[in-house]
């Protein structure tokens, strides 16, 4: 009897210790940025944008919304994305990318500083709303998120009601931005991806017979496929579907595409199922041209995947970790230091989101003591103004339309000798 009570007490004690440890861990989570900087200080010091580490950013010169004053203060950026569960890799990547950008900006020591807090949504709608509520309690002024489409639709609605400016790195459905003037996207919309894929195939493979394999329980995959199929019409000879539960075997779909005589196979999906498809196509001696979308980025770093299988695959992505421009090289090095792997497009989108917001804050001359609604209105005006454009990791000269969609050029990469090359 006594013994068991002691055992129970020791267990409880151990738990308390674990909790205490975790609490410490939680506190050190805060970025190493400089402590609270004086935000009301007169900005007589040098302006922040003197080239340096900043992406080839361009200060909008002139234009309708001439800066009202010098931007200053510590802005609170909130981030929402899945950091546990099946979609964790996307959320982790985007939030780490954003954190890198925040740390870089803080290290510049300019008048505009950021405090960044990322919350987990497990890719579930109600958890995302809870995370959003928590960030609001924390005093979030601008939202970087959500990372995935389904939770983002609900969070976007809340942010619209609360007038909080939101820029999502990767929620690509048009439903995210539809009817919400404060919601902007850093990634292509799904229909846009499908259309540019169709465009590319029409130009480069005019008479091709096309097969499409897509994931019909995934909004991203379905969105791209619908636009693509609408554009290609009769030249599609085969369409195969799969779901989350069946993405480990594609022998049926691959064989059917082969039987249909398809010489181009369009794969609107993430890279993990695509590796299986490439493997199984090779196994039956089927070698069409595989064309992927931006989700295909990352295929070369997939563990246990023979990268030679991806030889000749076309990836339509705005970002390639193997690019040799200085910005990408620095970002890839920093990301690898933190995460031990190459960044994918999500990480680059997260990074770009923070810098785009940073540039817009400077262009509009915002101060952190302004109300969230005022910041929201000013950022909307800046993002949609003709004079504002942003160049970063995922594109040059990006501009935003009033419906929140980004305009940038997709880049097609051909995988050759294990690296991305421009075809």
């Amino acid at each position: 009897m006594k013994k068991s009570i002691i055992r129970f007490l020791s267990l409880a004690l151990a738990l308390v210790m674990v909790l205490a440890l975790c609490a410490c861990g939680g506190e050190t989570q805060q970025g190493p940025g400089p402590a609270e900087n004086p935000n009301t200080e007169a900005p007589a010091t040098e302006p922040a944008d003197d080239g340096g580490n900043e992406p080839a950013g361009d200060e909008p010169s002139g234009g309708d919304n001439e800066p009202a004053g010098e931007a200053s203060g510590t802005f609170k950026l909130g981030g929402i994305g899945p950091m546990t569960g099946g979609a964790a890799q996307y959320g982790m990547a985007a939030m780490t990318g954003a954190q890198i950008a925040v740390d870089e900006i803080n290290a510049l020591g300019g008048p505009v500083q950021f405090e960044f807090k990322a919350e987990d949504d497990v890719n579930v709608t109600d958890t995302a709303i809870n995370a959003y509520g928590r960030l609001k309690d924390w005093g979030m002024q601008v939202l970087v998120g959500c990372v995935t489409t389904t939770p983002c639709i609900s969070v976007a609605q809340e942010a619209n009601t609360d007038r909080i400016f939101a820029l999502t790195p990767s929620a690509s459905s048009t439903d995210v931005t539809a009817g919400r003037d404060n919601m902007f996207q850093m990634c292509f919309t799904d229909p846009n991806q499908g259309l540019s894929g169709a465009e590319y195939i029409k130009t480069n493979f005019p008479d091709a017979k096309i097969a499409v394999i897509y994931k019909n329980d995934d909004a991203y995959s379905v969105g791209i496929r619908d636009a693509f199929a609408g554009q290609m019409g009769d030249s599609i000879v085969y369409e195969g579907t799969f779901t989350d539960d069946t993405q480990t075997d594609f022998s049926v779909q691959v064989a059917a595409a082969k039987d249909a005589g398809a010489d181009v196979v369009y794969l609107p999906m993430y890279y993990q199922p695509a590796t299986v498809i490439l493997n199984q196509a090779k196994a039956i001696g089927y070698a069409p041209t595989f064309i992927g979308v931006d989700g295909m980025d990352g295929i070369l770093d997939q563990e246990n995947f023979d990268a030679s299988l991806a030889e000749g695959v076309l990836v339509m992505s705005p970002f390639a970790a193997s690019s040799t421009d200085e910005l990408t090289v620095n970002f890839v090095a920093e990301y690898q230091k933190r995460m031990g792997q190459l960044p994918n497009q999500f990480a680059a989108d997260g990074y770009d989101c923070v810098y785009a917001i940073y540039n817009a804050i400077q262009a509009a001359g915002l101060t952190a003591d302004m109300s969230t609604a005022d910041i929201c209105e000013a950022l909307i005006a800046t993002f949609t103004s003709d004079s504002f454009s942003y160049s970063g990791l995922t594109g040059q000269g990006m501009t935003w339309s009033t419906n929140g969609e980004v305009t940038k050029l997709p880049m097609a990469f051909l995988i050759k000798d294990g690296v991305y090359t421009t075809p």
Partner: protein
Amino acid sequence: MKNLKKTTKVDFATYIGVTLAFLIVSVLQGRDMLTNAMASWLVPVCCFIVMAVSLNLVVGISGELSLGHAGFMSIGAFSGIVASMSLSEAIPLAPLRLAVAMVVGAACAAVAGFLIGIPVLRLRGDYLAIVTLAFGQIIKDLITCLLVGYDKRGLHFVFNLDGLRSVNDLHLEEGGVAIIKGAQGAVGVTKLASFPAGYILVMIALVVVLNMIRSRTGRAIMACRDNRIAAESVGINVTKYKMIAFVVSAALAGAAGALFGLSYSGLASSRFDFNTSIMVLVYVVLGGLGNIWGSVIGAAVLYILPEALREFADYRMLIYAIVLILVMLATNNDQLKALVGRIIPRRKEAETNG
């Protein structure tokens, strides 16, 4: 008061406890003392309380392990959303439309529960669990294939089973809206759910389930659970009573689903996967099988726990798991039970009374 039965007292205490909790939270909310995070928990907590109470009817009272409860929630959610969106002009009053949507959700889930119950309730034990799991999965996949739109001519349905159709195949007229877009789920939903509606639904679920348990039907259901052969030998129609429990449980889950669906502007069927079924089962088991107020508390505490643990950032899910294990150990620990029994001596006698 004294001549009230023990069970009646517990039932009334449950009603009063839930009402008190509702009043306290409402007052706090009215005075703006709730944080935004807390305010966002209210409606989903109500939904999951109803889910847990209704699942307890099947698992605890009827004694059948069902692993597909989220499927009924899903049916309720999407039929409720369709009803609410298509009736938005016919019934402009939001609370009434919410009520209608919940009734439609409950009815659709009840029909599905009846159809699924016919084959499922002929099975026992593990086999029943496996088949309910399969049905939950089938419901999820079917809704993934479902396209629904609404325009002046009425509702349009397309079943995208071959994966070749899209929203354009609904052929909506000018001004029509696509309500459910297959894998993308329902988007652009007008939010109707409110905390008072959630409270009313919880009370309805409690009244229905508690009264059913204490009635002749409930005793027959429990008799089937305790000894099927003995129950049959005294002339109880086992399938009928198991079916009653199953259908009532499905209907309540459907109503909870409708409330849940109408509290967010977008919802995909992947929310109602196997994991959600298991989560609800965990609420029931930790609250105590057959113990209705236990389900209420279990669902509320375990839904809020992972949110409250956000302070621990990366360790959140780890600590959540540790807490679950500790609660399991603690509630099954005889020494601890004896300890509690000594502190509250009356508890012992209550246990012997059942």
